[in-house]
């Protein structure tokens, strides 16, 4: 029962993340890559993402402090970030990133700064939500394994 309940909860949470637009189809794609050898593959990917991009976020922040702003550099940074965000479908982060890119092209400093703040918020929120989700998923998997007939 526990197993089923947990499994249902996981499914619900995932659905909710979808509905709220935090993740998209790519997340499912990556999840489908999970198998016996790497049951937590999505989690690994997300962890790797946050590790890799934390540096980028700092760089962008620093770049936004410069006067005048180097829009080309900013554009390059955000391009990188966007690429990485597509790896598991971080939809809101991608959306903010796209907006940021537009502001860069328009050389709109204020727009860039505001958007970046939003991006950071989404970035952090997503991390929190996914961490909770993964924890639940791990529990569900444990329950599943435990309850399997030997």
């Amino acid at each position, binding site marked *: 029962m526990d197993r089923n309940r947990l499994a249902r909860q996981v499914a619900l949470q995932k659905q909710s993340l979808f509905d709220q637009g935090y993740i998209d189809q790519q997340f499912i794609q990556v999840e489908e890559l999970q198998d016996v050898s790497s049951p937590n593959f999505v989690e690994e990917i997300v962890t790797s993402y946050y590790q*890799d991009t934390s540096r980028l976020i700092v760089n962008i922040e620093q770049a936004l402090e410069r006067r005048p702003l180097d829009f080309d550099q900013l554009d390059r940074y955000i391009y990188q970030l966007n690429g990485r965000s597509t790896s598991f479908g971080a939809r809101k982060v991608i959306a903010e990133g796209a907006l940021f890119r537009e502001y860069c092209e328009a050389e709109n400093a204020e727009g860039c700064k505001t958007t970046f703040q939003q991006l950071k918020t989404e970035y952090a929120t997503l991390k929190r939500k996914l961490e909770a989700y993964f924890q639940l998923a791990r529990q569900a998997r444990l329950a599943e394994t435990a309850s399997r007939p030997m």
Partner: protein
Amino acid sequence: MENGFPSTRNDSFPAGLRVLVVDDDPTWLKILEKMLKKCSYEVTTCGLARDALNLLRERKDGYDIVISDVNMPDMDGFKLLEHVGLEMDLPVIMMSVDGETSRVMKGVQHGACDYLLKPIRMKELRNIWQHVFRKKIHEIRDIEGHESFEGIQISRNGSDLSDDGHMFCGEDMTSIKKRKDFDNKYDEKDLGDHSSSKKHRVVWSVDLHQKFVKAVNQIGFDKVGPKKILDLMNVPWLTRENVASHLQKYRLYLSRLQKESDLKASFGGIKHPDMHLKDPAGSFGLQSSINTNQNDVANEHMPDTKKTLNADNPDPQETSSHMSFDHSFATLGSEVNYEAFDCHIWNEAPKIELKREHKPLLQLEDGFSQLPPCAPEHHVKTDKLHPVPSVTSGLSLTARDGNRVSHVSPKKCAIESFPIQSKGHMVVNHQSYEPVSTAISSMKPQGFNLSCLTDFDYCQRNLKASDSTLAPFNETACLLQGDFHNKYFGLPNIEFTDCNDPSFIAEIPVHWYDTLTSDYECPLDPTEYSIFDQGLFIA
């Protein structure tokens, strides 16, 4: 692997395909590795372009295909692409978050056989083996085509240039079958039988390439020819065809470097699917333009020779309408009775050496009875066919096949650098062609009409690209009437009804193969071409 895949993979191809993935994003690298492994491919990952190049150089023939992101910190992805194409001649797939047409175009121009957008789905990766297979087939066909060339020639010459234009139709069925069988057994090491004549993959190391460049410079770029280069290079194990194919690529590369800015200027968007369509009757006005332009073509990237064809594009759409022939072609032209051509032959970027040496031998007769097999020596590589960059094809392709970006051949004329996997065809000089590379494949599904076109188009492209194998094509082209051209090139559903002899077109073999032995290489055998067409379109 020379004749195909190593034995371990033969049985279960494409399983075991050796893929090298290059991306500075560790997250994507993990995902791609996992996805590719799920496809049963053998994966090697790399975070830096330099490392990738080192790996490729160290293990020559150690990989079948390379997938790389365009945005690498240490080297531009496009540069890597060029290097891989020049040195290793492997198919390369580009990846990017950015799907902007100009970027994709750039990828295609630099020789990418495909361009994937992130996020990449597994199903897109499943099919990458087709690029490897296609390349192999082209290589094989090149060799085979050459071998069977004589046989086919005889049969073709013998068959009548039927007034109905089916000249190529009466082709030698056995050769077609032979080819089909060949393809079927491709992965069964039947290739071994051809090994004697088959060229072995040559890996162009930096040293080798430098020797090559030195030789080219010594001879003088204009007068260069594979034979001369080979002699100067003094590398005993290198064959003339190796050099010829490399020369073609090199030309493309150089011409692309030159033309890049021109292209950009002239090309706005890439696709102009209907470009050709525009001028139905006019399209064939090529001939005249061809004649005149020929001489200018010479290294112009986009000779406007014939823009009659719908070329909306400022660039010489050459593709269809006329081939922007390099002047080399021009020389050919003089030999060839271009007037007879109704259709403009493709843009051909005749090989420089070709031009001088061979006369197109096109005997354009009223019925274009046949293309003399010996086209100027052109280094035709079947695999080059694929990219048929030129314009002509491009248009049609785009029209037909909207999907794959990589296959789209934008109207860009200056595709010179179109070395999409094909080695020889992309004759750089041809600027006008569009990267039609996959035109053929894309066109394929439609059936006869398309095949005809494809073949034709393909031929054209190849012609352009390669050194003037135009000769054969020209003839064929002539056969086609203007509206054919239109249809052919631009319209998605080209019907050959208007063409003089649609069947004829289908038969046009755009077979560009290395000049293995004779000076004159005949363009693809029509029969081959149709087969080829089938074979090309793998997925």
